[in-house]
Structure formats: structure tokens, C-alpha cells
């Protein structure tokens, strides 16, 4: 397995000539700034150069290459597998209601006996990640690992893109399937957030809008607990997500605040808030988040002394980037330190991460995590 990563900037072009790695077993992953929606040039070049390869990618809220974060660029990682088949399946999504079906169809299009895992990239705004994950799970055996993320647009929350037939388009979702017994795909996902204050029962909610906790207005409670820290809501809400605990399964998920409504005393989150679950406020210092990223890397079962070439796809939440803006790349440094020497880390800051909560579990939508997927061939 060979990996090469190149970058592209509008003013300076490619960082180096595109390497000759085209094959039907080659995966070209592109993570790019939202403005490339209107810039065809580099995509045309990629399509020409890697005409037989699988080309996939999405827009970001920050591109990741090793321990660096880029804006206004394209990060292109070209991986040529030796003994692994890869397949891409793309599905259009018109509205959030299609999410379950989209997840189901993506998975359906990739199903095969020797399917090992699926990497999913989806539109970041037109999809309900929770339903999408459920749809994908409905078609796949639990042992098939599904990881991925929701595209970003630099924190503007206006329009994201996915590469469709090599060109950026809005309103799509895609999955890449990895087949055969040589490919090893692993994942780790952690946030590092600390819950605080009492946990409460969600007594009134609707999809991703939370109205009441323990029968009391949610926003009022939220503000009461944040004190001065609540002044910059909803922007500062990114710093204080909610921990959801499913009473029945014990599963814990983190949800980021996207908006607040003073009149309805409600909070809108980047994922479903099911009534009856328990909710608790969370906070994190920069150090906590770096610890979280380390824990995500620690979850990987990969032997970090191997000399194989490893592709690590790091998908981290846009909220984490905002908190860590004073020490950019610190969490990437932390994960890279724990990965094998011949690892190339690429990825993006996202609007939601997809991965199981635990090893060998079903895929879920996460907020505020560092989600790592490592791929290598034995």
C-alpha cells in the first residue's frame, strides 16, 4: 500500500506534481475549503490524473494534514491498495427526512460478503446524522465498521459539498467500501469533555430541539449553570455541550448547541435529543480536549510499532477547533504521536462525526469528538 499526500492552494497551485498512483484500487480522498465549490480546475486535473481511481471527498471547517490545520486549501491523499478492492456509492439527499433512507441506500450499494468497513462522507447541513447512521446500521452487520463525518463549510453553516463523479456538489452523501481480508480498518473516538452539575431527565424535546429538563425550561437552567459564561450564547454554546445518556442502553453521546430561542426557552442541537434520556452539562479546557484526542488514539488496537504505511483519517468537530484556536494543531500533534511512524494523518474539522460508541458497536452520530479511522494493509 502506497500513500502520497499533496496540497492545493488557489494562488500557488499543487504543492508537488500529482504522483502516478492511478489504479482501480486507488482511493483519492479530497478534503477542501468550501469555496472550491466554484473552482473546477483542480478537480478536473484530479479526474484526468486518476481516471480509474475512486475519487471522494468533502468540504470542511478546516483541512487536516499531519499536525497542521489549513484553510482555503485542498488536501489530497492518494492511497494505492495492493490487495484491497474499493468501491464508491453516492446517493442524493434532498432533505433531512431522507436521511434514514440515504444511510440505508449507501450501505445497500456497498454490501458484499467480503466487505470489511465503510468510510462515509455526507452533506453537513441537509442530513440528520442520527437517522443516517440508523439507516446504514439497518443494512449492515455489526461487525462491519462504519466511520466518517459530516462535511463542513468553515463554520458558516450555509452550504457544504461532496465530490460526485469527482466534482463538488451539494445535497449528496457517499460511502467507500473496503473489501478483502488484507485491509485492516480500526477506529477510536473520544471527546475529553467533563460532565458537571446534576444530570436531569429530558422531559420535553422534539427532534433536535430541547425544551424542558426535569419539567423546567431548558435555556433558563442552562444559563443558571453557566453564569457569566452564558453571556456569548449561542456562540459560546460550542464550549458547553450536553451529555446524553440513554437510560436503557447506558450509551452516552455528546450534543453541541447550534442555536438558542429566548422566547421558547429552547436550545437547538446538532443531533437528536430524545425525550426520556438523561442530560448533563459539559465543559472542557484545552488540556481536556487534547487528553480526549489522546484517548481516541488510545482506543485504536493498531500496534504503533508496525512499519507498514498507515492512512489515518482524523475527523474532529468544528467546536473543538474553536476552543483550541489558540493552540491550533495541538490535538493533531497528540494523536500523531501515538500513531505508527509511517502514518499520514489527513482529515477535516466537521459538523458531526460518525463512528460506533464502543468497539464492535453500531455506528452513531457524535458531536465534539476526535474520531480516528486508521487503514492499512497487512
Amino acid at each position, binding site marked *: 500500500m502506497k500513500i502520497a499526500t499533496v496540497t492545493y492552494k488557489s494562488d500557488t497551485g499543487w504543492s508537488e506534481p500529482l504522483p502516478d498512483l492511478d489504479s482501480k484500487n486507488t482511493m483519492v480522498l479530497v478534503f477542501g475549503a468550501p469555496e472550491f465549490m466554484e473552482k473546477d480546475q483542480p478537480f478536473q486535473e484530479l479526474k484526468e490524473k486518476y481516471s480509474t481511481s475512486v475519487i471522494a471527498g468533502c468540504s470542511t471547517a478546516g483541512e487536516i494534514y499531519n499536525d497542521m490545520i489549513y484553510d482555503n486549501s485542498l488536501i489530497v491523499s492518494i492511497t494505492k491498495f495492493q490487495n484491497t478492492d474499493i468501491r464508491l456509492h453516492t446517493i442524493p439527499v434532498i432533505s433531512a427526512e431522507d436521511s434514514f433512507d440515504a444511510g440505508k441506500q449507501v450501505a445497500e450499494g456497498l454490501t458484499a460478503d467480503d466487505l470489511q468497513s465503510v468510510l462515509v462522507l455526507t452533506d453537513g447541513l441537509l442530513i440528520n446524522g442520527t437517522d443516517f447512521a440508523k439507516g446504514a446500521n439497518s443494512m449492515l452487520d455489526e461487525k462491519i465498521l462504519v466511520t466518517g463525518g459530516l462535511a463542513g463549510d468553515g463554520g458558516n453553516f450555509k452550504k457544504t459539498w461532496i465530490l460526485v463523479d469527482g466534482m463538488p456538489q451539494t445535497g449528496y452523501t457517499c460511502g467507500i467500501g473496503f473489501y478483502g481480508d488484507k485491509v485492516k480498518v480500526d477506529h477510536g473516538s473520544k471527546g475529553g469533555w467533563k460532565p458537571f452539575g446534576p444530570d436531569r431527565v429530558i422531559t420535553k424535546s422534539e427532534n433536535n430541539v430541547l425544551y424542558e429538563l426535569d419539567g423546567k425550561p431548558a435555556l433558563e437552567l442552562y444559563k443558571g449553570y453557566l453564569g457569566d459564561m452564558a453571556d456569548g450564547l449561542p456562540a459560546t454554546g460550542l464550549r458547553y455541550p450536553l451529555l446524553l445518556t440513554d437510560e436503557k442502553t447506558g450509551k452516552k453521546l455528546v450534543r453541541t448547541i447550534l442555536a438558542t430561542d429566548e422566547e421558547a426557552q429552547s436550545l437547538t442541537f446538532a443531533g437528536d435529543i430524545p425525550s426520556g434520556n438523561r442530560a448533563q*452539562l459539559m465543559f472542557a479546557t*484545552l488540556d481536556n480536549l487534547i487528553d480526549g484526542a489522546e484517548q481516541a488514539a488510545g482506543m485504536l488496537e493498531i500496534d504503533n510499532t508496525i512499519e507498514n504505511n498507515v492512512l489515518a483519517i482524523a475527523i474532529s468537530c468544528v467546536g473543538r477547533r474553536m476552543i483550541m484556536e489558540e493552540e491550533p494543531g495541538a490535538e493533531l500533534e497528540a494523536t500523531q504521536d501515538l500513531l505508527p511512524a509511517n502514518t499520514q494523518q489527513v482529515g477535516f474539522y466537521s459538523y458531526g462525526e460518525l463512528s460506533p460508541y464502543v468497539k464492535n458497536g453500531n455506528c452513531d452520530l457524535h458531536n465534539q469528538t476526535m474520531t480516528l479511522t486508521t487503514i492499512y494493509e497487512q
Partner: protein
Amino acid sequence: MNNNKLERSLVRQLKHSGLSLEQTPTNLNDWQKFLVAINRSFIGNKDARYLLEKSLDQSSHELRVLYDNLKEESEQRIKALQQSEDKSRFMASMSHEIRTPIHGILGSLEIIKNTTESDNKQLQFINTAFSSAESLLAIINNILDFSKIGADKIPLESIDFNLHKLVNDVSNVASAMVHKKPIKVSCEIHSDVPVMLNGDPTKTRQILTNLLSNSVKFTHEGSIRTQITLLNNKNKQYNIRISVEDTGIGISEKAQKNIFEPFVQEDTSTTRKYGGTGLGLALIKEFTEMMGGEISIESTQGNGSRFWVDIPFGHASEMTESEEIAQPILERERERESEIKSEHKKYKNKKEAQNTLDQKQKADSIDLILAEDNPVNALIAKTMIAQMGLNVKHVPNGKQAFDEISSGKPYKLVLMDMHMPIMDGYEATKSIRQWEKEQSTPPIPIIAMTANTLAGDRDKCIASGMDDFLPKPVKQDYLKKVIFEWLEKHNQTFQENRDNQKKESSLASSH
């Protein structure tokens, strides 16, 4: 954050700033970068601390509010509980207050009936007045019972009793209640139903009485049929079905649903036409359920009703001697009641009866003490006793009764009301018993007379040292029977005592 984590983040910050622990920083920019990173950690921790303190503050506040609310709620509940207790107490004392004058009426009527010459028409009025006062008393008793149920104050008895006798007694009463209506009252006890059972006879009697009086009330012609069957005998329990079937007006399907709720009758017109408080069935249900049983109804409007209760009873303990001896006071009392009835028949000729009594009484010089605070009740009792040819001394409270006894006068019996000023019946009895013990005097029979007719009251009377119990309103025949019975017993004891004393003294003199 533990030391290990702190150290790790320090190392991370050094590395991030291009420094290492082993080397003194040479580049001022790197050093500055490091200091900035350290400062950020510090600020981060400070923010975290603020949040934790804030949350602690908020949580304590919420906890305080929760505590206050809980406190207020529990205080309100306690208050409500007290109020409901006050209400029950008020109901109980009200019922008591109402019953006392009714007793006065009943007693007076009985005396009029027995002593004055009345023509048939007058007698009819007297009888009507008597049965009206009795109905009133039954209603008051139901109200009192119900208020006690609400206050959980009715204890459940578990004693051996004769079910066959109880059923026959109640059925006889029902036959009498029918009066002139063309109704055939029948009672069948299946042969496999045990005679003696263990349970609560008072409540069983009340259940059957209420069921029968309902049937009598709502049936104009036809029949009222009581059936007692044994459903099964398992787990050391007899499951007995008591069923009362009538050919009365019946109950609509709709009304059957809440017929067992208190104060519910089929509709208000029922109340107007047939009267009643609507407490009867509610009481039956409460009592049945208290005994672990179930009540059921089967009825078609206009076509009669059948009510039945299935109640588990315990096995009666083995009775080797005459059942009557082993039977508790309550049962004895009831048996006496029926004996009185037969006696009453025997003494139909009043004068003959009077002569027999006179002869009996004149033989002994008898002195009774009647302790009773209510002047009407006292007058009635005094009149009744005087008619028996006995001398009675009336005192208005327990203290004076005690004074009389402890003065050493040869009284032979005490009739004791329970609720009296200065010293009540219980206390007076205790004092008398204490005095007798100190003086080594044989105990004088003390008979309680009270309107408190619940099982617990009886026990309380006996426990305080009394010998027997007369429920109010006191019936003349019954009073007479009890008084003579105890006087006889007292005479025997007195005689034995005197014989013993004689023996002792003769023994002493022979030494």
C-alpha cells in the same frame, strides 16, 4: 486533574513551544510561546473552577428549594391528616351525642309500652315511634362505622363463632322487618357449611343484616332468599359464600358500576322513595374486603337482585366442652338475646311475670349502683330497675360510684356508663378493683353500659376489669336477665366466701 496529566500537558506544551525539559531555553520566542501556553492552561483551569463552583452553588440552591418544597408538602400532608382525624373524632362524638337522646326515646317508649294501658291505636303509634327511632339509630351507627373506616379505626376480630346461629338470628330479624309485605323470607345453610368458624362475627353479622335490610327495603312482594354455601376448604380456610337474592326493584347495569361507592343509590329518586344514606353497601364492601373477601352483584332492573360475598374464614379451634362456655362474650350476648326472646314469649302475661319476679326479688334485699351522667338515660334505667323490684342508687359519675363502693356499703352490682365527667367508667372500675384487692373483698360485678358498640370497646371494658357489657339502648328484658344472672353469681361467690371465712375462723379457733 492529576499530577500525571498535569505533567503530560506540561511536556506537551514544552514540545509545542519547541522547548525541552533537559535544555535551558535559548530562544526567547519559544520561551514566550511556552509561557503563553502555560497561561492558557491556567485560564482554562480557572474557568473550569468557576463553572464547578457555579454549578455547586446552583445545585445547593436547587436542593434547598427542593427541601423547602418537600418540607412544606409534608407539613401540609400532616395537617390534612390531622384535620381528617379531627373530622373523624367530630363525627364519632356527634354520633354519640345523637345516639344518647335516641336511647332516651327508645327507653321511654319501652317503658310506656310495658307500664301504661294503651288502646290498639296508641300501641300502633308507639310501635311506629319505636321502629322509627331504631331506624334512626341504625343510620347513625352506619355513619359512625363509616367515619371509623375512613380513619382506619375499625379493628378486625379473629374469634370462633357459630355461623349457623348468626345467620338464623339475622334471618329471623329480617322476617320481622318484612311486616305486612307479601314476602316469603327463607334461609338455607348447606349441610357442608361448618357450624363453628373463626373470623369476625360482628362484621359478618353487619354484612348480612345490611344485605337483608336492603332487600326488605327494595322488595314489595315475592321472596328474599338467603343461602350459605361452602365454596371450598383449602389452605386452612373455608371459603364461604353468603348470598341474598330478592325479587325486588333491581338495579340498572349503569348503576351497578358505582353502587358500592359511599352515598350512592341508584338515583336521587331512589333516595326520595326509599330513604337511606347509601352507606349500607359501601360498608358491606369495606367490611368484606377487610376480611379478605369479595362482593359481587347480579341484577336486572325491575327483576330482582342477587348480592353475594365470598369470605375466607379460619377453622375454629376444637371445642370439647359445651360450645357456649368457650364462646366469647359477644356470642354469649347474642345467645342471651335469643333466650330473652323466648323468655319474653313465656312471660306474655305481664302480671304473671311480675309476680314471679316480685317473689324472687323480695327474698333478697338488693342494692345496685347506677353510674350514669345523662339524666334521661338514668331515669329510664332507674325506672326499669325499679320495675324489677330492685333498689338502686344513682350517682352521676364514676368518682361517686367508687366512693359508694369504698364506703363499704353492701352493694351487689354496679351498672357503669363509660363516658362520664370527673371519672369515667374505665377509671372508676380500675379504682374499684384496686380497692377490692387491697381490702381482700370479693369483686363486685360491674356491668358496662355504653353506646360504643364496636368490638374494640367491649375488649376495653373487659380489660379494665368489668364483667359484662350491655349495649345501649338497653332493653328492659335483657337488662333484667343480665342483672339477675350476675346477682346470682355474686350471691354464690358471697356464700362461698362466707363459708371459707367460717372454715378459716373455725380452723383458727380449733388451734
